[in-house]
């Protein structure tokens, strides 16, 4: 059970971490596929 919890905790940590890392990298669709000539707001 302890190992299972460790695995699930690692899953949450990696997932949340990847979310923030990808956002920092400009991963979102508007960051990747829009330019100055396109307004999304």
């Amino acid at each position, binding site marked *: *059970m*302890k*190992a*299972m919890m*460790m*695995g*699930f905790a*690692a*899953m949450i940590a*990696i*997932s*949340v971490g*990847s*979310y923030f890392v*990808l956002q920092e990298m400009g*991963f979102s*669709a508007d960051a*990747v*596929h*829009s*330019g*100055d*000539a*396109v307004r999304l707001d």
Partner: protein
Amino acid sequence: MLRAFLVLVLCLGLLPVSAPMVSAQETVTDRSATGGAQTLEDILARQRGEEVAPRTGDAASAARDLSGQLGTLGGASDPDLWRALRYGSADITVSSGGEVASVLMQDGGMAWLEFREGPLAKYGGYLLLGTIALLLVFFVLRGRVKLDYEKTGRTVTRFKTMERAAHWLLAGSFILLGITGLLTLFGRMFIAPYISKDFNATLLLASKYIHNNVAWAFIVALFAVFVMWVWHNIPNRTDITWFAQAGGIVGSKHPPAKKFNGGQKIIFWSVILLGGSISLSGVSLLFPFELPMFMKTFDLMRSVGIESLPIYGPLPTALAPHEEMQYAQAWHAIVAFVLMAIIIAHIYIGSVGMEGAYDAMGTGEVDEAWAKQHHSLWLEELQKKGEAAPKDAPKNATPAE
């Protein structure tokens, strides 16, 4: 007098009808400039409510000679340009969106959508439901695989904490990815119409966030599991015996096996290869248009002489960026369905299907009787290393340090 008046009225009444007929006959007298197709005069005549004579002659062939701007039937049209636009080979400049946005027309979308909502959902769903049904039938017929030897009370360590943590990291992420993937595919079919579109939209938004981010946990776990267990999963001769005796699952024999038996090796390599393929197509989908893989794959297949595939037909020779994504999504889902079916069977045998199997991944400790029944060669290795009590040890004896 009265008769003369009626004749005059009748003539006046008929006059507007007969006049256009004369006019139409006049407009068709000279259509040489259009090769027989209608002229501006014809159009104006029709707008006046007059009848226009039908097209005459071979207008298409006549129009080929026309080169003036705005010539009838597109005499100044450039079929090469339109063809290039149609098939995505025109030299297009776009203000944003890069190479992808320069494809103005691609027709793979409908075929992909029809495949996704048709055969993919249908046969994928049947596969999962069929697997569950088969396992239920098997459970009813075979029952649980019981422990045939008397429990010794001594346990051996089957999997260490790190191994189990990696397994649960892989398992937890795969289950989340599977559920969110199924919601993405089936939500519009089974949730939106019966619960609500808003609920489905909220569910899919959450699914998207979970799927896109938990994917990395799955990839990390896949790599960790591969590194830890690949050595134990290299096929060997004992696997042949194991398969010949159906792993003891059917029948009463207990074929010898090392740490992983033949069935577990099938699971392992399925997870690694199919999971690896799902990961690659998934990363390709996570970074749209940046990591196209299918044209390279098709080129590679052609280079080894594979020109077509059963059911699919000839391999494509060119793919628009969007088609690359459509192929990636279709492949991602097909392979995921197959792996989900395999994992459902794995979950069954690791839980209700076999007595004592869950302990291996639960506490990591299994009774020596269980190890002897299912992994006798592995137990012997442990006994030689002193990590398990000798064969003739009395019940509840502790293994030698």
